[in-house]
């Protein structure tokens, strides 16, 4: 996967994750272009489009569009699965997730994504394991000061 974008129906970018190095200018350009193209598509249309030399897979959940760019040989359906799995994870974690959750707790949303995908590849296919890792990390965050000192005792 080359990158993943989350944006609202209004075209506001809510989350972006790039797995290929690109300049900020290029990222902005791509984002603008894709947001425009995807938003212009009608709801009945299929979730795939060919864009530049990549394939774009997008899916809308409530007011949010999840949009991934994959390479030519990649499997579109599994990408849809990945998007869906990510949404499931968000939903489980936040409890009926909505756009505002992602604005408000964007760092958590990123964290969940990082636990699920690493360098553009799915790293963990088990929902349970991912959620467990996130819970652990949350705990860690709360008790962090102790942890640092622990080492030197």
């Amino acid at each position, binding site marked *: 996967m080359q990158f993943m974008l989350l944006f609202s129906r209004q075209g506001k970018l809510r989350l972006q994750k790039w797995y290929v190095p690109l300049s900020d200018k290029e990222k902005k350009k791509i984002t603008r272009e894709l947001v425009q193209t995807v938003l212009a598509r009608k709801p009945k249309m299929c979730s795939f489009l060919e864009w530049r030399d990549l394939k774009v897979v997008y899916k809308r959940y409530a007011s949010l569009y999840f949009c991934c760019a994959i390479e030519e040989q990649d499997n579109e*359906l599994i990408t849809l699965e990945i998007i869906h799995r990510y949404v499931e994870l968000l939903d489980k974690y936040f409890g009926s997730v909505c756009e505002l959750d992602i604005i408000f707790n964007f760092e958590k949303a990123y964290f969940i994504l990082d636990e699920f995908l690493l360098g553009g590849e799915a790293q963990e296919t088990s929902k349970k394991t991912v959620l467990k890792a996130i819970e652990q990390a949350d705990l860690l965050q709360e008790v962090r000061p102790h942890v640092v000192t622990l080492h030197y005792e």
Partner: protein
Amino acid sequence: MALKIVKGSIDRMFDKNLQDLVRGIRNHKEDEAKYISTCIDEIKQELKQDNIAVKANAVCKLTYLQMLGYDVSWAAFNIVEVMSSSKFTYKVKIGLYAHVWICQEIGYISQYDTGVALTGLSCFVTPDLARDLANDIMTLMSHTKPYIRKKAVLIMYKVFLKYPESLRPAFPRLKEKLEDPDPGVQSAAVNVICELARRNPKNYLSLAPLFFKLMTSSTNNWVLIKIIKLFGALTPLEPRLGKKLIEPLTNLIHSTSAMSLLYECVNTVIAGHDVNGSPFLPPFSLALFLFLRFQLCVQKLRILIEDSDQNLKYLGLLAMSKILKTHPKSVQSHKDLILQCLDDKDESIRLRALDLLYGMVSKKNLMEIVKKLMLHVDKAEGTTYRDELLTKIIDICSQSNYQYITNFEWYISILVELTRLEGTRHGHLIASQMLDVAIRVKAIRVFAVAQMATLLDNAHLMTGNVQRKGICEVLYAAAWICGEFSEHLENPMQTLEAMLRPKVATLPGHIQAVYVQNAAKLFATLLKNQEGNTDRTAAQETSQLMIDRLPLFVQSANLEVQERASCILQLVKYIQKLQQKDVEVAEEVIALFAGELNPVAPKAQKKVPVPEGLDLDAWINEPPSESESEDEQPKAIFAKEEPKHSRARHTEVDEKELAKRREARKQEQANNPFYIKASPSSQKVYQEAPGVEHIPVVQIDLSVPLKVPGLPMSDQYVKLEEERRQKERVEKKKKEKKKRKEKRGGRGKKHDSGPESEEDITPAHMVDIVTEEMPLADSEKLPVRSHRAAEALKSPAEDGDAESPASQEPKKKSSKEKREKKKDKDGDRKVSVKNGNPTRETALWMYIYGAEIDIQGNLQDGSQVVVSVIFENKCDNFLKTMEFNVLDSLNSKLQRPEGSGPHDGLSVPFQLPPGVSNEARFVFTMQSIVMPQKLKGTLTFIIKNEDSSTHEKLDFKLHFTCSSYLITTPCYSDAFAKLLESGDLKCSSVRLEGVNMPFHHLLARICFHHHFSVVERIDSCASMYSRSIQGHHVCLLVKTSGQTVSIDAKCDEPTLLGNVLDEIKQTFSQC
């Protein structure tokens, strides 16, 4: 200097590096501080060296020390110096060493910390970094925790990409991970190897048996897909593998319910077959097998396409088009299905289906397919898709030299039908097809000419409106065909007239030019026909018609039209003269256009031998210098300069040069079988067309709503809620007053104002004022009640009130009621009775308008809070010398006039006659607003009647909640998102159970009591914002599901946040 450097490098040998430092620190557990201070001294020495490497080493150590919590700010300059060093590696190393050490040091404390470090690393792997870290990550690949192993394995992929040398040493370990007991690690390893194999499959052939085993044993679809993809990459290299794979793949295709897996299998089979099938023919049995599984794939794809899911349909068609390239036959049988897809609502599916159709046509089914397509053209809405259909129809028909067209009359009529399309951009495409067919298919000319004549006759249909501009290109072809093959015309006179209609002048210039030229051809044909007759007048009339109509074109703004028209006009005039002398001219006129145009194959030129001595590669003229780029010059300049150039050149040109040029022109003409070429202006028209079609601006505007949804709505209801409350309050007040009036007269009757005050209170309050039990004489005891504990305090109030005042000073009894009120800049917003207990006899009402935030003060000094108090005299006596005093705390002080002591009261600057109320404001200075405050205070006053005056005292409590320090500040969602992104905010959250109210009431309550504003609301989730007087941002995310409300909050001041949340919690615990 040199000596110094040498000395420096010798010293370096004895320098500690980072590892030594860490080891040292561990070995000096008892006297760590001492050890570190010696280390720091060493580092200071190192930093003084000129050698940048030494410095870098020192800085590395410093970063580690800083991590341990030691202050290294004294070295800031040196760190910056090293950072700015030209050698990037030092920079990287410093950042990175710190990083590696984070990984390794914390590694055994918390797997999740390492996980975070690795995740972070995945975002910024550079070749340098990859090289430096490859070993460390490799170690992590055999970490005891699967969580770390998994991440390390995946990270290795990024490292391999950046630093391929690391692959060789890491490979055995990576292979090991394929059989890891943890499925997560295993799938990560499969992932990495699959991705690597796609880049360079050769190296991974040896792993095939292992993967084969995995494929047959794994049930995880995610892994299976990757494995199948990997095999897809491997099979082309090892044909035997393909044979072996057939069975498991077929099984999977048959058995799996996961569409993604099925799709992957089918794709792999198709791709594998592609390579297997074409270059090396497999043995017959295999070919048969392949064919069989192929059928299977197509069958499966059919299921996909028939699915109601658009996505599957699309992918099915996509895969079909891949099969089509190698096995057109197996796809052709599904023509019906694909034609069906043309009816789909989704444009991208229709376009895919169209692509497929292109490859599916045969002589047999062409007409049928095109007929179907024509139907779609009629139905299609949206020009893009219709244009796409049109081009596809033409592509399908014209592919490989009209291979599939059996009846050209049919094709011409299709083309003519297509001209009826409105607003298409492809008029020129249709036109070129018409020309092509008419020129190349002799047999069709009669039919074509008849059709074109009709077109010309009905030209007005095409020139009508602007939208049809594209299609009028067709007239270009029609006019040319009618002129060139005019001998086939049934009624040439009518066509000639059609061509010379005044309306023609509205057509684009290049078309008019063709009209004029072909009118002349037609004229020639007509003359020939008419001269054959005995009646000469007909011929003369025709000439007259030309002479009458042509002047219109002579006046044309288009040079080409003008030139041709005036030439021909003169010619016709001359012919007319000759006709009047009864000279037969037809033969000579016809000679003007004699000779037939024959189609020339594009490669025909190759068959003409190059004459001896002609070198086609040699420059005819001197090659133009590169700097001289006339093309780039704007047209206007070009046009102006052109005549000058040509004149100047003209004189220079000698005979030889001319001959050369003639030769060149002949060459050019030879390459140009059709002398008619679309003029550049026509191309321009088409280039402009898409530009107009785009106009994305409109679309963007439409997709972006003008307002953030939720915001106006919530504002609205907050306002409504306020209004409602205001109204209620007014009514309540009235009622209360009424009641009190009654009660003041009819004494003795105690009443419970509990519910009243309760209701009044609920709206909101900035500052609670709680009157304590007052240390008054029994006789003076006043009914006092905290509204929150209204019931509990009821009885003492009764005692004090009902009896003693009656005996002593029947009318003097003063009951005090405090009200508080919050005021905002824009006036009163909320009033609430705080400790209201209006008893029968009331002398003084003290309303405290709570904590109006001093807006002025807020801007310069966020520490001032203004409390407005309303005093109302409810007794029949005069009240004077009121003094307001509050016991200051460390944090908050009542602002007193200069010169007065810290315990002096503030005198209220007015007296109160009976029944009068007035407001006084008191300013408090707060140092910190992160905690709620309670201040004790006293109000002393004198009650004066005719005979005597009595001192009285009233104790109260001022309660400054944290919410009272918040100001309702509107915030737009963009700004809100930015604020959250800044990452400076601390997080906290609270859960409220059993809240049973509509979500918008809940929000209104938070807005009202705690001064928040709704930023955005989506269903049962809303984000809210407020700001403290000291500029703290408070953000809330309120979510509700069932009776549970969860509030996530963020603020730059955690204590304030905690208190605000507590207050919110309390607000809802009361309901």
